[in-house]
């Protein structure tokens, strides 16, 4: 495969790296925190895109992987005092295993039924953890600030975790691209267009769908560990917030589902719009309503998202937009 020669991939990678290095160049901590959130969103949206954009399965409760990974990792860090890297890997594995087990069951459902099932799973896990004493129940868990001393103090820890997030975001983009241009990715897109036809043409749909589900769950799980470690606390409503799950879908839609750069563009745009609305005195109270209006306008008038729209409008951009 010579797909790595396409400029589109390198542009996406370059954008992430330049964005990721901005806080170092400016040396601004506020910039770093903003960038942290953007990178997190990019990674989550890119992961979701593998299932949503390539395979066409709408996971409304995808945040369950972020939450479960976060909880497992946080438990290891706070209670078992495991090193951070091990906790991150454990969070990723936990999410992958959950996706694999769930996938075998709920991926048989199609369309709206699948979407409903993912909401149900997220709520079931959230309410369960809310009642589960060993993980802190409704109050959740906290780490003592002294834990950051192992990582060179809170300030150093914030930079370290920032680099890990940048690394994971790059991994998400590479994964997204690698899947899209593989045989496996072609199978997923065949499923998106017509699942029965794909099956007849020899795509092993159950295993391909499960694989896509697992791949889209790993990085959110790892991100959950870092996010809540940095946050120094975790609680069920924060970890399994359905709204955040839907924000992920909005980002993918905004940028263009099924494209590699789409989730990147969409996540950055969404975060930019949100921070504008939150800080502007006029829109502060109505920020959610405006986000809703924006979403509605996209769905009604540009359903293929920014990247998709540009691609269909200007054929010359095909090599650079993917």
């Amino acid at each position: 495969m010579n797909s790595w020669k396409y400029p589109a991939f390198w542009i996406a990678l370059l954008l992430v790296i330049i964005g990721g290095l901005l806080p170092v160049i400016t040396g601004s901590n506020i910039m770093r925190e903003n960038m942290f959130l953007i990178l997190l969103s990019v990674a989550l949206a890119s992961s979701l895109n593998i299932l949503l954009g390539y395979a066409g399965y709408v996971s409304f409760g995808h945040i369950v992987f972020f939450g479960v990974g976060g909880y497992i990792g946080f438990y290891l860090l706070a209670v078992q005092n495991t090193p951070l890297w091990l906790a991150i890997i454990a969070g990723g594995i936990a999410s992958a295993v959950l996706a694999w087990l769930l996938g075998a069951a709920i991926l048989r459902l199609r369309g709206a039924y699948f979407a409903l099932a993912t909401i149900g799973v997220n709520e079931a896990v959230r309410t369960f953890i809310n009642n589960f004493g060993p993980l802190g129940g409704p109050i959740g868990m906290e780490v003592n600030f002294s834990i950051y001393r192992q990582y060179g103090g809170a300030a150093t820890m914030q930079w370290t975790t920032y680099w890990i997030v940048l690394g994971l975001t790059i991994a998400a983009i590479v994964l997204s691209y690698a899947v899209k241009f593989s045989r496996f990715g072609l199978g997923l897109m065949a499923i998106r267009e017509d699942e029965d036809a794909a099956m007849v043409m020899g795509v092993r749909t159950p295993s391909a769908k499960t694989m896509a589900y697992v791949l889209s769950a790993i990085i959110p799980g790892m991100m959950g560990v870092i996010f809540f470690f940095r946050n120094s606390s975790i609680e069920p409503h924060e970890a399994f917030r359905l709204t955040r799950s839907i924000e992920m879908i909005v980002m993918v839609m905004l940028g263009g589902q099924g494209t590699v750069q789409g989730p990147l563009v969409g996540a950055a745009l969404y975060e930019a719009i949100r921070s504008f609305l939150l800080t502007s005195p006029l829109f502060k109270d109505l920020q959610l309503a405006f986000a809703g209006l924006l979403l509605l306008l996209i769905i009604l008038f540009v359903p293929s998202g920014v990247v998709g729209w540009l691609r269909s409008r200007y054929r010359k951009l095909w090599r650079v937009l993917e």
Partner: protein
Amino acid sequence: MDHLVASLADGLLLGFVYGLAAMGLTLIFGVMDVINLAHGPLIALGMFGLLLFAGANGLGLHPYVALMLVAIVGLIFGVIIYYIAVRRVLDAPHLSSLLATFSINMMIIGVGTAVFTTSPQNVEFSLGSLQLGSVTLLGTRLVAALIALFVTAMLYLFLYRTPPGKAIRAVANNRAAAELMGIPSDQTLALSFGIGAMLAMLSGGLIATFFSFSILSGSVYELKSFVIVVLGGLGNPTGALLGGLILGALEGIVPTFMPVSWVPVIEFVLFVVILLVRPSGLLGER
């Protein structure tokens, strides 16, 4: 034992109201294959409608008169939502209609939070209680259950005995064929969305007569409606009433031997299991 019966009776009364809410959701799905993610905020709007029409700081009407106004507002609002957000995405993939209705959800919650804030409200209203042996039934809940039953009966009469109701069933059955028979499918779909929204707001109004609420409380009842709708079979109004009763009974029985916070866990596990084992619902064919 007495405690169990009392708790069960209370749960069943609530179940009728839950069933009414779920009927709104299932009607819309049955007719146009759209899952209305603005269902929860509509329920919340019904609650606030009651507060505005019947509350001490509002018009101060009798709550059940206010409820009628809430229903009318719901119908009109539903039709507006249909024309703005739903109509254009009916033939698009599922994701579009899910997100279109969710965008309405965000707008209602956004504006609602700005106007009403998220602090809890309640409507001061009491009808005393009814003593049946050892069981005490709260008047407001009893009346709410009766109203829910009455509305269900009316809905059935409407769907089976009137021309627009028959048109709705025809469009649900086969839109293209209905159009060929001269049924204006667009208006019929708008009407069904309006009725769905009306049922949601009505149930919200009923809930507001006995529980306190905020603009965010709709989401709890939306999730309950999902569970009920899946229990009864998506698109099946009778199933929704049955599902509502099952859920109400669960909420009545479970707290007698387990902490009440486990109720949602059981509900959602049941929800996922039913989806997996019998996606057509308990009443649906296998």
